[in-house]
């Protein structure tokens, strides 16, 4: 069996996102194999919400995700290291302003 044939036999991978409670965001919980999205939801329920971890599940085919390249880390993220003025804590608020 060639490698492509083996890959075709394996079920596609889905990324699973779980919302733990109302008002919170869906968070990446992990991934699993399923033949389609409907099955992936069912399996995500069994694999990732067995201990009441969630009230809502999203699944996304892993192949639909475009990721940044770790090799680009330096040019992608390092320039932000010295831009401390982008953090709200950089600014001193006059007392009159109170809480923002």
């Amino acid at each position: 069996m060639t490698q492509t044939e083996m890959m075709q036999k394996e079920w596609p991978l889905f990324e699973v996102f779980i919302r733990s409670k109302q008002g919170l965001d869906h968070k990446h919980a992990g991934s699993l194999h399923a033949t389609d999205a409907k099955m992936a939801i069912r399996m995500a329920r069994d694999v990732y919400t067995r201990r009441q971890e969630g009230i809502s599940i999203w699944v996304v085919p892993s192949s639909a995700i475009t990721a940044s390249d770790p090799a680009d880390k330096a040019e992608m993220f390092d320039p932000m290291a010295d831009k401390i003025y982008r953090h709200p804590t950089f600014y001193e608020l006059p007392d009159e302003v109170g809480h923002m």
Partner: protein
Amino acid sequence: MTNPVQAGAAGSGAHLEYVLRLGDNALILGQRLAEWCGHGPILEEDIALANIALDLIGQARLLLAHAAKLEGGIRDEDSLAYLRDAREFRNFTMLELPSGGVSSAGAMNPDYAITIARNFLFSAYQCALWTRLADSTDAQLAAIAAKSLKEARYHFTHAADWIVRFGDGTEESHRRAQQALDALWPYANEWFAEDRIEAAASMQGIGVTGASLRDAWLAAVAPVLAGSTLARPRDSSFVSTGRAGLHSEHLEYLLAEMQSLHRAHPGAVW
């Protein structure tokens, strides 16, 4: 000690017997499904089946604890589960059949088509049953029914999904699913056959007759079969006798495995 079987005909006897049956059904199918643990066709299904098995064992614990109370506290849930012999078990015959199929020799040759077809047929029955028992005059049973209904609905969704995929899948999956359905279908007759315990429990408002569940069961099962391209098996007059304590030869083997630890180490706990 009062034997619940002998007390069966009288009022409170029927109540106990009725609850015992429900508990044994959940326990025995739970044990059969638990045999898949670590042997599932893929990791995710392995976990799904273990979840379903644990749902059923949880139901069995509640029901057997309730039965023990109705019996008067002579025994507890553990002695009911682990210290009765095959003839004292009240589960439907279909639920004790090996996961490898009706004529299979044991648990070591499991067939996913049989496992799923059985879960499909039985969870549809359980959905109809728990819906009705949620209104039982036995408040404890009504509470167990309300909890179990949610679980049964998921079991049905899970199994029905696979039935459609098998039926509408490859030539082999279709053939094996049809074979499993054909083999199991006659064993469902027992669920709907007339029975004096059910009649008595129904008179008291505690339980319902199986016959009154058949329409709801068929209404759940038939559309899935139609969508799966699998043929609805022909009806027959065969009626198995598990709920009366007359079982297939397979139950003894199941009990031997399930009860060996407790019998060797009475009272053993985790």
